[in-house]
């Protein structure tokens, strides 16, 4: 397996393959600013929850690095994970029925973590496999196993993400694109754990 490309989106900035593209650390609404700097026209962005917004931006940046000639429509697998599931939207939805006394349908539909993969599939017309895991913390060994299992089944590549949006304001989306190669799996694990540390310390 090898890493074809990676991106990182968080309130302070947006990064691609280790380089900072947008500095949003001073912005009142960092994700909106990153979206506008991206220069992509997709009004549905504004309706998305924070998980989907971050993954949307990070995925747009990775598009040039997808394998050419592969049947991405069917053979791209999405493997996403986080520790807080849809916590941020869950709490907003509770507020809509406890405080505002009107349960909001548009909040409720985002009270599942896998909606983020649904949004990406809609945007890019991907009909392939999806799976969302809930884990204590980012675990590169697990991602490496899941991706290898996905590739073993005949998928061409795996778009993986650790995408977190907690009620306390912690937000990050680390996306990486994996495909088959001759290289040893363990180097992927090491590479992934180094990358996320670098991004978090930026």
């Amino acid at each position, binding site marked *: 397996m090898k890493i074809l490309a990676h991106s990182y989106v968080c309130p302070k900035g947006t990064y691609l393959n280790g380089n900072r593209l947008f500095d949003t650390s001073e912005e009142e609404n960092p994700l909106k600013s990153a979206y506008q700097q991206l220069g992509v026209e997709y009004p549905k962005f504004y309706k998305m929850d924070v998980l989907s917004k971050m993954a949307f931006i990070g995925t747009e940046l990775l598009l040039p690095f997808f394998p050419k000639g592969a049947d991405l429509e069917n053979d791209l697998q999405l493997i996403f994970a986080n520790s807080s599931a849809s916590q941020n939207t869950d709490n907003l939805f509770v507020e809509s029925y406890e405080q505002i006394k*009107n*349960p909001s349908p548009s909040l409720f539909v985002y009270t599942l973590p896998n909606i983020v993969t649904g949004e990406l599939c809609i945007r890019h017309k991907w009909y392939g496999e999806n799976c969302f895991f809930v884990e204590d913390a980012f675990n590169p060994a697990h991602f490496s196993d899941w991706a290898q299992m996905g590739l073993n089944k005949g998928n061409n590549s795996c778009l993986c993400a650790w995408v977190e949006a907690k009620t306390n304001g912690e937000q990050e989306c680390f996306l990486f694109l994996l495909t088959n190669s001759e290289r040893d799996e363990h180097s992927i694990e090491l590479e992934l754990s180094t990358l996320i540390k670098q991004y978090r310390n930026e």
Partner: protein
Amino acid sequence: MSDLKENLKAQIIEQLNLEDLTPADIQDDAPLFGDDGLGLDSIDALEFIVLLDSNYGIKIADPNEGKEIFQSVNTLAAYISKNQ
């Protein structure tokens, strides 16, 4: 009536998270749903039901009733004036 319509446009933008629009972008008689309108979908239609209840105290029990009411800002305003 025109105040009601202006308020409605602002509420629609807020409730449906249409941050890229301003009230001036929404014509009174333009279709709200479908590709040639604002491109709103079935969840937005349900969110309109919440909007009518929260802001105007009007309850709609059957979402199918909404189809006529939510056609445009004009039809919405007319329905609110009649039922409030």
